[in-house]
């Protein structure tokens, strides 16, 4: 370890500095012995918090998360686990009622184990979430640990560098020059480098040529993008932040949109199939139909404050890939059931004359008690409705709100004002009370298409998008540009040149060959072996 961090150039460096902040001279013994300082150049040889020798608990945590080795291990563990999670389907894609049984029956011992270990819910497990969180922490700490010293070092870099610094660059050259040629050589070099878009700084007999420094910030910017993205995921844990539910509606039905103040009405639902001539021959012969379009004409409604009336908010022809969107709320086409039972048609017959008096339709989702249906000159009033009829303790009850076995009690009001009561129970024939003049019978079914709409709201969407855009900016900066520097210095009749790039050495060497050609300077021949 270094005790004295004062460089011979007189600059006082922080403890842990590898290369003098001022002149670039290697300070640590093991670095002085190396022929190349390529690895040390990565962060300009600056002291980093994680590299200190005396550590508090905070420093230890910091050092752990600032390690790229740790970051890579976290990435690899996450990707391996993600892969394991796809061996069998995740629970959410399994329709079976008993998940445990499904995995056992379908995949045997391996399936059971998969389920027991909780791998069937991999991506929502706490340990998977903690892995992602640890990657997030690592992103923050890795970036801070490096970007601050790197920024300071690059901002304060000096043109005149120590000869040892230049000789230990991966690409370097040293040639003797006559004293009267010194100036011409440097000027030529300057000119050629600026032709290749280098920014030139001159200090006495030294040159610093630099380009693409901004690309060094690329990785840190993309990490910021990722952190913002992860923050968006974190926000999802706020209750009510997301809406994720489902609503089924037959044509004409109005239902409340779950977890919102809105109602949605299904005006019409259609499915359209490709005509046979639109299909390739191979698909035509199969006889199977290929769906072309699912569409629901939907209206979003809102209750007028203080009354029961509904006001239209917006309407949309919802298709797959084209949801109804209103202030962050999305209704997506995701299920279609053709010809569902919407109601039943009932016919009234005069028992004496055997004459039909007419029909009326009871629509299940639109039943209100004491509702009156006009059939000819008769008024039929709904007295009781049991959607899922059963007898319990000798009393009629309903088992659920679904019209599985609807039963009704009607009163028929005759033109003369007399009333008679009548029972209708689906699937059962009840003898009407003796004195009844009219009988009510099933006359048919009222069928309609049913749509299934996914109800989604994801408030983090904008956070994701901003994170994604920042990530793309950073990754583009870092990927398509590189930071190249060339140092030149004449000292005691020798022209020393050293060059460094943060990546793509081959391309740098080719560029320097082109720079060197016109001035008869050969670059890249002397190259230090990589460590």
């Amino acid at each position, binding site marked *: 370890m270094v005790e004295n961090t004062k460089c011979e150039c007189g600059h006082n460096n922080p403890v842990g500095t590898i290369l003098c902040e001022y002149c670039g001279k290697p300070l640590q013994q093991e670095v002085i012995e190396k022929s190349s300082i390529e*690895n040390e150049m990565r962060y300009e040889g600056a002291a980093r918090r994680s590299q200190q020798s005396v550590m508090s608990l905070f420093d230890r945590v910091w050092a752990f998360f600032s390690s790229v080795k740790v*970051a890579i291990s976290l990435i690899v563990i996450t990707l391996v686990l993600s892969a394991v999670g796809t061996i069998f*389907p995740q629970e959410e894609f399994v329709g079976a009622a008993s998940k445990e049984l499904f995995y056992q029956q379908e995949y045997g011992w391996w399936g059971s184990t998969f389920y027991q270990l909780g791998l069937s819910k991999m991506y929502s497990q706490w340990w998977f979430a903690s892995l992602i969180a640890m990657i997030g922490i690592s992103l923050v700490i890795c970036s801070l640990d490096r970007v601050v010293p790197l920024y300071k070092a690059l901002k304060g870099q000096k043109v005149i560098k120590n000869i040892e610094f230049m000789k230990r660059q991966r690409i370097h050259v040293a040639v003797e020059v006559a004293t009267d040629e010194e100036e011409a050589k440097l000027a030529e070099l300057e000119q050629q480098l600026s032709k290749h878009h280098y920014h030139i700084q001159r200090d006495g007999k030294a040159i610093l040529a630099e380009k693409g420094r901004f690309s060094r910030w690329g990785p840190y910017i993309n990490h910021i993008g990722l952190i913002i993205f992860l923050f968006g995921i974190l926000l999802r844990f706020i209750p009510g932040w997301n809406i*994720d539910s489902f609503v089924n509606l037959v044509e004409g039905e109005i239902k409340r949109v779950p977890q919102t103040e809105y109602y949605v009405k299904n005006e019409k639902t259609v499915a359209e199939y490709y005509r046979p001539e639109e*299909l390739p021959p191979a698909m035509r012969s199969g006889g199977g139909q290929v769906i072309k379009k699912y569409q629901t004409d939907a209206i979003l409604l809102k209750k007028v404050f203080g009354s029961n009336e509904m006001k239209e908010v917006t309407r949309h022809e919802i298709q797959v*890939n084209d949801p109804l969107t209103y202030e962050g709320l999305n209704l*997506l086409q995701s299920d279609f059931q053709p010809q569902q039972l919407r109601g039943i048609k009932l016919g009234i017959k005069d028992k004496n004359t055997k004459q039909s008096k007419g029909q009326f339709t009871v629509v299940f989702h639109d039943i209100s008690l004491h509702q009156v249906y006009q059939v000819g000159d008769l008024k039929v009033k709904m007295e009781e409705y049991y959607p899922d009829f059963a007898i319990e303790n000798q009393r009629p009850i309903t088992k659920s709100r679904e019209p599985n076995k609807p039963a009704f009690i009607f009163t028929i009001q005759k033109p003369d004002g007399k009333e008679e009561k009548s029972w209708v129970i689906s699937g059962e024939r009840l003898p009407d009370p003796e004195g009844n003049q009219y009988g009510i019978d099933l006359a048919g079914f009222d069928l309609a298409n049913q749509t299934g709409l996914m109800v989604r709201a994801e408030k983090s969407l904008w956070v994701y998008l901003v994170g*994604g855009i920042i990530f793309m900016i950073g990754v583009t900066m870092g990927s398509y540009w590189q930071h190249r520097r060339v140092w030149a210095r004449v000292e005691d009749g020798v022209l020393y040149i050293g060059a460094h790039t943060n990546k*793509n050495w081959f391309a740098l060497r080719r560029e320097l060959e082109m720079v060197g050609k016109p001035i008869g300077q050969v670059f890249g021949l002397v190259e230090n072996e990589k460590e």
Partner: protein
Amino acid sequence: MKTVMEYLLFATFFLYLFSAVAFLVGVSGAKKKGNAERVKKWGQTGLILAIIGVTLHVAFIIIRIMISGHFPTSNMFEFIAFLCFAVVLGFIIVFFIYRSFVLGAFVMPIAVILLSYATVFPRDVQPLIPALQSSWLYIHVTTAAIGQGLFGVSFVAGLVYLIHKVGNRDKSKSAISLELIFLVLIMFGSFSIVSTIFQMTGYQATFKHAYKGAEVVQEYKLPAIVSPYESKAVKMDSFAGMSKPLFESPKIFQGEKAASKLNSVLWSIGSGLIIYGIYFAIARKRLGKLLHPLVQKLNLELMDEIVYRSIVIGYPIFTLGALIFAMIWANQAWGRPWGWDPKETWAFITWMFYSAYLHLRLSRGWHGEKSAWLAVVGFAIILINLIVINLVISGLHSYT
């Protein structure tokens, strides 16, 4: 118009093939000294053929759009053909940065294998199901595929690097691993050839069996080596005296098309081993050793940089296409940006893998052989996502 489209596809295929041949002829001359001129001449021919090939490929895509009204990336044939296009395009981009003819001699044969593998799948123009009717279909899939194409170039550069570095080694683990990679590539090629032959002769076999309480019919396009579990043959053309399947598949392959896929895998492995066996009987040395002289004069550092550079060029494109655009579309079509569907998960795995690669290279100094192996593994992950996930594990993305 359909015939024009078919002709364009054939022309593209043969141009890629001729380009591969030209590159190989050029590079094979490099063994002798003072033949740089020859490498350059043939190499340039190869490059021009590849560029014409890519142009015709674009024409093929345009005509297919005109016929179907949508961008051709909606089924296995269309996607793999597009991936082949992306690989060749990626090669052309990388070529103009590094001017490496050797790379062409290995990229183009792999492009040929990819395109012939694509034609194994039905080439019919199919109408789009509602879930795919979105302009994101081509925005998302093309960007993702171009990224993958560049990863493909990196995979080939990695192979070239490894041929140089370990191809000539005796009895080493890495030499054998490299040979296994060649064997897998041969299996892809031989499967495509076998499938084409049987498609032309119109081979058919049909089996009936029960699955989940219903009767299912499985159609084979290749002679049945293995029949579905507890099935009855409805019809089976005989091939080389084989009029009955050799054996019945085990119980786990009782899915709807599982047995016919197993049959295809057996054909790939079998035909690949036979072709490799014939090769080995003639050449009497490993492919790595055979190819090694072609890359003997290789500039290793250049190839190492191509491995890395193709990945770094491809990475932002892949991120944009396979993750960001994917999330935007998923949000529009399925109401959530991310749902851990197997295909999504594997895109995530691919991305994480290349992220790890970049960190290993830039921060941990993984160069050379390590970097080349990682490039190979990365492309293997992409192929797993393309083939295994689509054909074996079904999810929301399995439309073919």
